[in-house]
């Protein structure tokens, strides 16, 4: 599903150029659950952003679903993103001014799903993450675990082929963290490919494969099963 070859990414300021990702190669199969680990600043979030088409790559090739997407313009990327990729962030990134229902509904609005269909699908997914009873609450009225469940619901409401999770349990206690990890595992078992960046060895155990990075390069890959 994802085939990244010889990826280079630099960050430039007026005076210095920092190499964020250096000659990186990654291959993710459809249906896989991959964890990316490494110390802070090693480039794992940058990699995730590039996979999610939120950031450009400077050199190299990125093939998504057999299509070369490295040179896609903003409109094409946005199009590909909203139909194929769901995101889960460490800090949930829910919109404070919208209710739980409205937050989850957003991706469907942007893919022009009709209102009745949207209602049905949002309710289904809220049931699935067991937050239906809080559908009219605002994010600040929920616990961290509940907010992350809403974020997961939002990520999957469009039935994406790929979910990108950036430290999804980083702001949660262990029991809430486990709940979220179980949710991701269920999704993976139902066929969704997941790439997750994490610091937690415990969370990494939920994945099929762990990619370890250092200074912008992959230094080791291990299979967990």
């Amino acid at each position, binding site marked *: 599903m994802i085939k990244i070859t010889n990826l280079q990414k630099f960050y430039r300021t007026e005076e210095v150029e920092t190499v964020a990702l250096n000659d990186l190669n990654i291959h993710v199969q459809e249906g896989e659950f991959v964890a990316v680990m490494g110390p802070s600043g090693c480039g794992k*979030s940058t990699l995730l*952003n590039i996979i*999610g088409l*939120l*950031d450009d790559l400077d050199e190299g090739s990125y093939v998504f679903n057999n299509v070369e997407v490295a040179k896609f313009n*903003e*409109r094409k990327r*946005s*199009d590909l*993103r*909203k*139909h194929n990729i769901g*995101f889960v*962030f460490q*800090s949930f*990134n*829910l*919109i*404070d*001014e919208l209710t739980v229902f409205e937050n989850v509904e*957003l*991706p469907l609005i*942007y*893919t022009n799903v009709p209102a009745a269909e949207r209602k049905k699908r949002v309710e289904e997914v809220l049931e699935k993450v067991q937050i239906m009873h809080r559908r009219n609450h605002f994010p600040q009225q929920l616990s961290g675990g509940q907010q992350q469940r809403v974020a997961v619901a*939002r990520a999957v409401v469009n039935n994406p082929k790929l979910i990108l999770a950036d430290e999804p349990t980083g702001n949660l206690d262990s029991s809430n963290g486990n709940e979220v990890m179980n949710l991701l595992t269920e999704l993976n078992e139902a066929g969704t490919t997941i790439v997750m960046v994490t610091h937690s060895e415990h969370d990494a155990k939920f994945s099929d494969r762990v990619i370890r990075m250092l200074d912008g390069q992959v230094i080791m890959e291990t299979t967990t099963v």
Partner: protein
Amino acid sequence: MIKIFIKSAFRNLWKTKGYSFLNIFGLAVGITAAALIFLWVEDQVTKNDHFPNKKDIYVVKSKQKYDGATYVFQATPGPFAKAIADDIAGIKHAARLDWGQNFLLTVGDKAIFQRGSYADPALLDILSVEYVQGDRRSAFSELNNIVLNESTAKRFFGDEAAVGKTIRVNNDESYTVSGVVKDFPENSSFKFDWIIDFKKYQLANPWLENWGSNGLITVVQLEPTANLSAVNATLLDFAKAKTNGEVTFYQNFLYPMTRWNLYDVFDSDGFEQEGALKHIRLFSIIAWVVLLIACINFMNLATARSEKRAKEVGMRKVVGAKRYTLILQFLSEALISAAFAVMLAVGLIYLSIGSFNSLLNTNLTVDLLEPTHLYFLGGILLTCGLLAGSYPAFYLSSFNPLKTLKGAKQKAGTAGFIRRGLVVLQYTASVLLVICTVIIYQQIQHTKNRDLGFERSQVINTSLQGNMAKHLDVIKDQLKATGNIEDVGVSDNNLMDIGSNASGFDWEGKDPKSQILISILNADDDFIPSLSMTLHDGRNFKPHFTGDSTSVIVNATLAKMMQADGMVTGQTLHWNNELHTIIGVVNDFMFNSVFSVNPEPLVIFPTNYEYGTLYIKTKAGVDLPETLSQIERIIKANNPEYPFEYRFLDETFNSKFTSVVRVQNLASIFAVLSIFISCLGLFGLASYSAEQRAKEISIRKILGASIGRLVGMLNKEFILLVSLSCLIAFPLGWWFMHDWLGSYKYRIDISWTVFLLAACLAILIAVLTVSSHAWRAATANPTKTLKEQ
């Protein structure tokens, strides 16, 4: 400490150069606009202040009733001044003067037209003129003396003494310069290049002995202790008393110099109305509003920037800054910005005052050392600095350091409400001014394009003067012989300015009780064809008035007063114990006021005067410069002593719009400025909003929102605000302009398209302003934004 404040203030201004510039520039523009208007207001309200006796000086007004309406004129008869000075206690001086004349003054080979008056010597005492050469005693010792003002004396005699020198007046008589007086300042109601003793005028105009002929201005100075109401009570029927009840058609009263410039408009009941004061007040209010908006804008942009400085405030608090030191820091930043704005404004005022003067036809000057100007600028600096600085100062310094360091957003609360309210206020003012400007423009165009009843294009006006009347037939023939001239007509008054009128006309079937004021014009047989006027009935005068010495032509308005169908040819008018036969009715043409629906009633007499106006109608498509030089050659050949001066009738017509065009110009300047400043306000608010919503925008973008959709989302809020402004401005605009148009009888109907246009313009400008921010926010890298948040 102060040094640190100033240093960090400068650094902060420099760090955000773009914002600082917008902020300072916006305030400077506001100050400039307000300052220019206040200079104009100052000029208007201080008019005539240089006359030491200002509060004791009056002009005599005359009230006359015709057909139920009261007219107030500023005209008095010849014997009036002396009689009131002799008879009424409390009158220190009373002086007569004429309405001003353009005389050709000649010294050697230098011949220049200069404007002056015949006046009683007492006028110079009333106005406290200062003699530079000669003195009050000798100035009018001889009848053929002439007093010059300093610049006229300089024009003819340079630095030499002028007193004792001889000047030819109108190539006719020689006068001796008997005094040179200081020029009056620009904003004076009296301006003379020369003054000749009124006695000289009286000798040539015996009608001045008549109590029934009102043709002069009478200026009065009261004793400081005089009782004005007692004087006015005597004046009311003074003429009636002096003529033993013979002259009763006017009553008089004194009108103070302090009100000449601001009021001097009277309604049809003879009550005083606000004149220029109306405009002065309106524009003062607008100037204050612009200044206030600019000032609050300044504050608005500063609070919008506060998000970026929240961390700095937190950090300063953590390292021990007291709240008052933070307040002082922000206030000093605002004061420094305001000082920059004032300095920039001073530069802008100097740069723009020239164009402002030519736009308003004024001669305003800025004198920075003038205490009022200094206080004004200093006052603005402190007010704007403190007012604009106080809100961010108290708002920013109240931030909780722990929260700001953690990056939590401070809730906008009332600040947000105020900011939105301000945008609504600004746009309301802008939309209102756009509506006013467009409607004033439409009204002017509507009137300019109306059918005037005569052809005003390609008509050249020149004065009939010197020997021209004697050679008029020759001049006409020679002009026509050029092949470029169609007709040459003559009338005593220019038809755009017919100053004479009279009552006492009688005709068969007229209600004996009704008194009708009728305008009078003396014209020749070519007058009607030269202006392409048409006849409703009857015929024009015959060449050289053969058999027409007692004939008259009336206009359709008068004809219809006499008989409904206006076919009055053959009927007679009785006036001044003479009978006049109506030989023709000319279709109505507009004279004097171009804003009336119909002209006043008018009688045209067949008279050749020695002076008057020539209407030279050129043929279509002629080479104008060539034709003008032919005209000049012919006229100069027949009247060599006089310079040839001309004006197009079009220009005379357009000068009727001077004051309304001035209002239009001021309104459009303020409309543009108001839009500009409103855009700054909106720009600030949009930047604030984009910052506030950066996280939301990023999330939406990640979830698939297109850039267009995000830009639309950010715009929506502002379009709503601007729409609200339109809703407030529409009724206000309608009300103002309905009231304004009410003062014109010939006027447009207010069209809804004006409101639509103003709304579209306001929304378009708002969208353009907001979209630059919205675009930047929508195209920013969302992951970067989320990381920063």
